[in-house]
């Protein structure tokens, strides 16, 4: 019964989701074929995205299940700090991050509210999210080691937590994208469980 560990895990997961979300909104079609493309250029492009909507499909590969668990729904980002993941299938639920509060609502149940700043180490995770959203590369690299592969047309950004106690939970967050649009987020947990989210930034 260590709620701390599961909460950290939750935040790590939601961090991935938040990261997934903000580029998902980026459908500006901006020309990114600059001669020297790198992390700074990627961040700058992504941070200019004000808001947006995308569809997602998520598959969880868990040690305790014999087959992946699949869900799907809609992601929304509303400036300045509201993030929403609305799952439609197989069962409806809604996850919202607004300010300091993370809320999970399921029909017929009281909403669960979690404070993101409950502990300093989680504060670090959140700071990572916010720094990224603000295009604050300095803060992002303070919390994560990054490694970027590919080019503007098809890239993969790997984030590894620097903090040991966060690394105990999440070993890597792998984000793939094309231009300012995200195409997927993969979270590898240290116990071997894995979550894959594919994002379709063109709803309907």
């Amino acid at each position, binding site marked *: *019964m*260590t*709620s*701390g*560990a*599961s*909460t950290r*895990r*939750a935040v790590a*997961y939601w961090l991935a989701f938040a990261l997934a979300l903000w580029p998902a909104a980026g459908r500006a079609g901006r020309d990114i074929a600059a001669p020297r493309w790198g992390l700074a250029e990627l961040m700058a492009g992504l941070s200019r995205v004000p808001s947006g909507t995308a569809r997602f499909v998520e598959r*969880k590969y*868990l*040690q*305790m*299940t*014999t*087959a992946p*668990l*699949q*869900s799907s729904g809609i992601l929304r980002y509303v400036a300045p700090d509201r993030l929403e*993941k609305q*799952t439609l299938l*197989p*069962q409806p*639920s809604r*996850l919202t991050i607004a300010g*300091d*509060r993370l809320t*999970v609502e*399921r029909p017929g149940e*009281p909403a*669960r*509210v979690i*404070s993101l*700043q*409950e*502990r300093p180490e989680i504060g670090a995770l959140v700071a990572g999210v916010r720094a990224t959203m603000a295009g604050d590369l300095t803060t992002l690299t303070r919390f994560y080691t990054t490694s970027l592969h590919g080019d503007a047309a098809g890239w993969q950004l790997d984030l590894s937590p620097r903090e040991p106690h966060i690394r105990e939970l999440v070993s890597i967050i792998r984000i793939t994208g094309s231009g300012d649009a995200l195409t997927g987020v993969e979270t590898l947990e240290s116990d071997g*469980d894995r979550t894959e989210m594919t994002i379709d930034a063109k709803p309907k």
Partner: protein
Amino acid sequence: MTLRRLIVGVWLMGLAVAALTIARTPFDTDMSAFLPRSPRPAQQLLVDQLREGVVSRLILVALEHAPPAALASLSRSLAAKLRQDDRFAVVNNGEASAMTRERDLLWRHRYLLSPAVTPEHFSKPALRRALDEDVALLGSDLGVLVKRMLPADPTGEMLKLLQNLEGRSHPASVGGVWFTHDGASALLMVSTRAAGFDIDGQEAALNRIHEAFDAARREVPDAGTATLVTTGPPVFAVESRAHIKGDAERLSLIATVLVAGVLLLAYRSARVLVLALLPVGSGILAGIAAVGAAFGFVHGITLGFGVTLIGEAVDYAIYLFTQTPPGGAPRATLPRIWPTLRLGMLTSVCGFSAMLASNFTGFAQLGLFTIIGLLTALAVTRWVLPALLAENFSASGSVWFAVPVLALFRHAAWLRWVVLGVTLAALLSVGLHRAPYWESELTSMSPIPAAETALDARLRREIGAPDVRYMLVVEGADREAALAASERVAARLEPVIASGAIGGFDAPGQWLPSQATQSARRAALPDTQTLAANLAQAVIGTRLRGDIFAPFLTDVEAARQGQLLRREDLDGTSLALQVDTLLTRHGSGWVALLPLHAVVDGPALAGRIDALGVPGLVFLDLKRESDNLLDSYRGEALTLSGVGGLVIVALLAVSLRDPRRIAAVLLPLAAAVICTAAMLLAGSQRLSIFNLFGLLLVVAVGSNYCLFFERPYLKPPEPAAGPGGRVCIAASGDRARMVASLVLANLCTVIGFGILSFSRVPVLHGIGATVALGAFLCLLFGAVLSPRRT
């Protein structure tokens, strides 16, 4: 000479006995002394809740005036310090980590605590349903929260228990600790171990909070400007005591100084001053000793009331000294004024006797204190003072006090009509008073300023602290019986919740099920073989692996072989306090309380609860009960005042016999009472019980003046012989001295009660203001309406 020595000896011995009794009497400021002694059972529960219920121990703490981040750190630091202190049962500031002990306890006993545990709960189909739900949760956003628990708790007992534990209230949160919604104050909720009536214990706890806050403020950066606000019943109790104690000391001192000043002014003799204060001092000592002997304790408010006795009992010595002609001996005056003094004292005693019969311990104490005090003061005036005086002692004081009243006499012919007109107008204004006559809020009896009550209400709302109005009560012969009864009630309430009439309820069985219920749950747990077999079948086709549930099999088997949960197991968690307040000793048995949440329609619900047909189940509306309580106080106060008034009238009738004389005493009294009531209504819109008792005391005290004014042997005032008042006074002899003594006595009474009206304690303020005003009007009206003998 020997008789005089004997008298003085008896008096001194009496004082010594009184002093000894007082030295052994405990003092108390518990405001529940002003709650009735023999209330109905439902009211007794209310009184018990006020005295020792969970609400009586709840302190709300707000940290303010610093940046939010600093306040959050301050909240953590303060909470950590208080959690180490034995004086606090619960310290909650919203930190999830603080609930670790509760979570561990729930986890270990989840199969005894979960209402879902029945034999069917572990059958193949039920397990299958549970596993399907698990898969749905795993795939959802809550998956991370359940993943770790799932192998040991696939039936989800812990999740349900946690939902109950977290409760309904979610205060706003900054940095993981509770804040007000505007983000300006960090909030903590602290429960003292000391019960509501243990004011010393609560004061110690409050002091500890302040110390811990000071220490925390030094440790946390940027928190230097932070301030601490505390509220809640313990704070109120401690402040009330401070108010009562402070008022009793301060006001007594002021009244003594003022009365002494007036006496010095009148007699210009320190010796007379000391002599005049002897009856008062003796009366106060005897009064406190009598209360201590009769009740076993003296309430702080009774002491505060001692102030009035100063103003009231000093009258007797004033009558004696002032009505003695220059060069005459007080001993010669006594036979002349003694019948009037005695009758006046008896009417006062009749008035205060009505309080003696009150169901409020507090009022009964005030009554006894005053009666014994007046009897003693008069006896000392009658027998001890003459015994102490030398044969040729003379102390006649200044008579210029009489001047204003003598002026009233001269203009009495037309002033009577003024008094009549004013009284009729007052009567009319009372009759036409639109708003309710009576104060209907119990809080009007509390010495807590409205601003602090408002602050308390605001913090309570922010923090979602229980503000319980409706609860169900069941009794049992012992704890188990009460628990079992509460579980039967809880089962009947499910359809009531389903219908939406109530949002939910708390019950002691949530955290401490009866032994019978726990045994039944334990017996419902299957053995490992059966469970493993059911599980193996249930898991087929669920996408969950079948081999992950070893912790589940182990834990169920452990619960099956384990001990039942006992009350002692809850010690060290906040659940202990929750259970203790919902399950308490009451009289010879035990009661279980079930507070109801989100009640839509109280009266309709009452009918519905009756219809449940559970014998002995009481539906308690605390608001209504407290209003009823106030109603019954008021009914009692009205009856007692009425009876007291009638007894005074009867006493006067028997003593005076002549209807004209009776009317001469009663008319000014009636006019004064009516005008006082009208002025109080005009001033504060409502009359409190304290005003009501005050009006009775107006009659009891004011009758003394009217009796003197009415005395038949008095000569009419002689016509003024010169341009100055002094000549006039010198000419009017006994009468002027009598009037001067009345004015002086009245002045002292008005000072005594008037000072009391500055008290922040409603009972002292209410009685003080009423009597000061009424007594003054009695003198005025008594002079104007005194019989004219020309």
